[in-house]
């Protein structure tokens, strides 16, 4: 015991300048804001797999966004004399049954698929995380009421729900994104809620209350970062689910309409002719799968990176 009081007094001695280089560096960091994301990025950079995935993903995005401008073909120009032909020097990915260049169609379809995947996932993330965190944190009757609402939406047949939304608000691509997001948040809300209920019992939440922090602050700053791990994993699983959902809605005539296409739509078309024209399925499916792989590895890496306990340095 005397040992410790000695150290305490030693440390407590007036030091000319407590600001060593470490402190100066930290001050700089503080000025830059949240250390959570900065640290996460530093840890992510060490994860080769995640980094490669990120790089590949960016390439895919560039391929879809910039690609069509570089191609000599128009995705909608039909050439019925050519018809469906396999990959060639003129058409790298071949052409579809209407003689349209598949490469351009994959690129343009990618734009829609990626947009749907990211926008709808972001929408579901925002609603789900906040809804779930509030329900879990408030507990009691508020929680019960909020979760019954979620159950109610779960019970509604999804298609009917989306159709209702579309009918009520008109049909546009953006609305479809929001509609899908509005459905996909349910699982997210449940997972965040259960995570928050588990965390709520830990004393740091009580400590935060006892330090006079407001509920909003506790939820946003102390609870949500702690559930980010599972949230990110679920998000990476939501992206492919959303893309497939979009293909399904398009098939019903509620999503992307011909002559536009998305990966989901292309895969669907390709699958119908796969015995005769396999390339119509292979190319879009390849990009679809590649994107999902990238997002999964990236999500995995991000989950580890966000958890300070996983740091090995």
């Amino acid at each position, binding site marked *: 015991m005397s040992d410790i009081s000695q150290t305490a007094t030693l440390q407590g001695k007036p030091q000319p300048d*407590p600001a060593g280089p470490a402190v100066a560096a930290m001050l700089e960091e503080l000025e830059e804001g949240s250390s959570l994301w900065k640290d996460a990025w530093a840890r992510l950079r060490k994860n080769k797999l995640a980094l490669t995935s990120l790089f590949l993903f960016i390439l895919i995005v560039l391929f879809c966004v910039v690609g069509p401008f570089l191609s000599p073909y128009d995705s909608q120009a039909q050439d019925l004399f050519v018809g469906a032909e396999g990959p060639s020097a003129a058409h790298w990915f071949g052409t579809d049954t209407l003689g349209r260049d598949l490469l351009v169609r994959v690129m343009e379809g990618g734009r829609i698929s990626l947009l749907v995947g990211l926008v709808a996932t972001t929408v579901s993330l925002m609603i789900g995380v906040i809804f779930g965190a509030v329900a879990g944190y408030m507990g009691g009757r508020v929680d019960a009421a909020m979760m019954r609402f979620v159950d109610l939406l779960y019970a509604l047949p999804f298609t009917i729900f989306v159709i209702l939304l579309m009918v009520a608000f008109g049909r546009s691509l953006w609305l479809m994104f929001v509609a899908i997001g509005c459905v996909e948040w349910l699982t997210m809300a449940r997972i965040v809620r259960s995570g928050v209920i588990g965390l709520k019992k830990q004393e740091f939440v009580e*400590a935060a209350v006892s330090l006079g922090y407001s509920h909003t602050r506790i939820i946003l700053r102390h609870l949500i970062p702690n559930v980010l791990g599972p949230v990110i994993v679920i998000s990476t699983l939501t992206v492919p689910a959303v893309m497939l959902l979009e293909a399904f809605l398009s098939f019903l005539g509620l999503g992307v309409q011909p002559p536009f296409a998305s990966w989901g739509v292309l895969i669907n078309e390709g699958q119908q002719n796969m015995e005769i024209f396999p390339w119509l399925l292979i190319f879009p499916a390849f990009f679809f799968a590649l994107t999902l792989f990238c997002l999964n590895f990236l999500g995995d890496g991000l989950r580890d990176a966000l958890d300070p306990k996983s740091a090995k340095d």
Partner: protein
Amino acid sequence: MALLEVEDLATHFHTREGTVRAVDGVSFSIDKGETLGIVGESGSGKSVTCYSLMRLIPEPPGRIERGVARFDGQDLLQMGKSDLRHIRGDRISMIFQDPMTSLNPYLRISTQLIEAQQTHRDIDNKAALFKAIEGLEEVGIPDASNRVKSYPHEFSGGMRQRVMIAMALINEPDLLIADEPTTALDVTVQAQILDIIKQRQERLGTAVILVTHDLGVVAGNCDKVNVMYAGQIVESGSAEQVFYEAKHAYTRSLQKTIPSLQEKGQELYTIPGLPPDLTKTINGCAFHPRCPFPKTGAAETGRPTLKDVGDGHCFADCGYCDSSGSIEDVLAKGDTDDIQLPGEGVEA
């Protein structure tokens, strides 16, 4: 005027099994710079008392049924939420039992210490960081200016509890509530932690409410002591009074359980039986069924109230506590095994 005056505090939990009267009419006061110990076994209402003062009782099922807690003239129990937030962490702060979970695992120590200050003070990052480092140095964290940027998981339990103390004291509160701050720590660290609380208290003039079930801790650290049993204070007074002139049979039984006061090689003394079921109305002394003293007469209605026996030394006298006899004599004489325990027959 006392810093905090608690009068007739009652906190009940409304559960499916009935209403648990966890705290049922507790009154005490604490002055600036004083240390008040609250002792009692598990379930006696020590922690609930503290949580009630901080209004941390989960509602429902809990509810503060009645009482007044005047802190600096304001009633903590009636205060609005936003006023309460200004008091929490700034004028009253709290240290919890389990240091392993009482820091946010996702934020750096520095972030958490700075946040605690910026919530209540208009202070820039730099000044707050310096104060955080200073605070860590004062609780004996070596190399504080480097360690401050660590995450909680990089610290041991004892270190985390020190960080908690630094965090609770960083705004120099008037009152610190320490809810069993050393229970989860090993014995060598316990003494250090208590020492640090004491040092800081002396420097800042903070009043401390120290909840514990370790009588040794109370004897060594507290000015005043409340002994709680079944949701009420059964004995209170200065540490000397409660330890050297213990009146209540429960206090004396508790003393008997201190291992270092017992002969070596003997089986350790335990108080037989279990605390009473708090969902039922208790008539007479709550300790009655476990009391080693000879019992005569019928149970009265209602529980005995605290009576002053001189110099502020109070105890809840049921009339059966043979206050003259020594507990050793009684225990030596009487065979404690034949004490009728509540609910024993039912369980079997």
